[in-house]
């Protein structure tokens, strides 16, 4: 029996945000990057922290045995962050990266097959920080 497919450990992402940001991050990334799988948008709208946490958990529980998850959250210290951290505490295969922006989503898609799961969260956070600049065209 060949295990070639599962030896390639899959890193998936869940994007947890206020309003429609998560849907739009994923839809917009698809326009730039092309099609991809394993990125799940979730909104906190009309949900209790518990029901949002349940939805995050359901996605993780449906994952394969070797699947790991980066959970992006827009704003750490709010209801999205609370639900996300409540889940992170219960799973070894979950890491949280906050302050999600479009460059971070694109970096995830670019790097998820190259960088291992332990290093990926800090690389994504770093990519996100680097994308935030006060810009003066004279100093580009």
């Amino acid at each position, binding site marked *: 029996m060949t295990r070639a497919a599962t030896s390639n450990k899959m890193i998936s992402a869940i994007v947890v945000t*206020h309003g429609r940001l998560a849907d739009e991050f994923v839809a917009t990334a698809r326009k730039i990057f092309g099609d991809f799988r394993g990125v799940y948008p979730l909104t906190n709208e*009309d*949900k*209790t*922290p*518990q*029901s949002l946490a349940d939805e995050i958990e359901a996605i993780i529980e449906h994952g394969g045995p070797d699947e790991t998850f980066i959970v992006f959250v827009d*704003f750490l*210290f*709010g*209801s999205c*962050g*609370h639900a996300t*951290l409540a889940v992170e*505490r219960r799973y070894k295969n979950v890491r949280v990266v906050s302050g999600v922006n479009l460059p971070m989503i694109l970096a995830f898609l670019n790097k998820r097959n190259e960088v291992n799961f332990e290093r990926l969260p800090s690389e994504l956070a770093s990519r996100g920080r680097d994308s935030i600049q006060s810009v003066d065209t004279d100093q580009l």
Partner: protein
Amino acid sequence: MPVKLARIDDRLIHGQVVLGWVPALKPDRIVVANDRVAGSDWERKFYSACVPPEVRVSFSTIEETARQVSGDVFKAEGLIVLLESARDALTLVNLGVSIQAVNVGGLHYREGSVELLPFVFLTGDERTALRELVKRGITLSAQDVPSNPARIINSLVV
């Protein structure tokens, strides 16, 4: 120990509280009255990190909150008291805390709940708890953030 705001919100401390109610009311302290959070180290740290440094924050069980607010533990402090559910609010009132008004700020959809307002979904038990608050002469004011109008919902829960 003036309670500037007693708020029912299943998210407890979050953006609407920190960016809406704190600047509007300028409380000295936010009291998270919740039995689970009072016993959860990570949640206390999490919620503490949500609060701007000029506002004190404390975490107490409903019983402890009743003692603290009715006694003089927080005397001379303006308080925002946050409650996760209508049931918790009723327990606090039943333990002798005197409140004239309760802000209903967010009770979101759960199984078996019915929509009253876009941010207020009530289970049968919560409706009963709110009705009890009304019987005690408390005004229920549904309002998510201070810049939106308040709606008195007493007549909708009896």
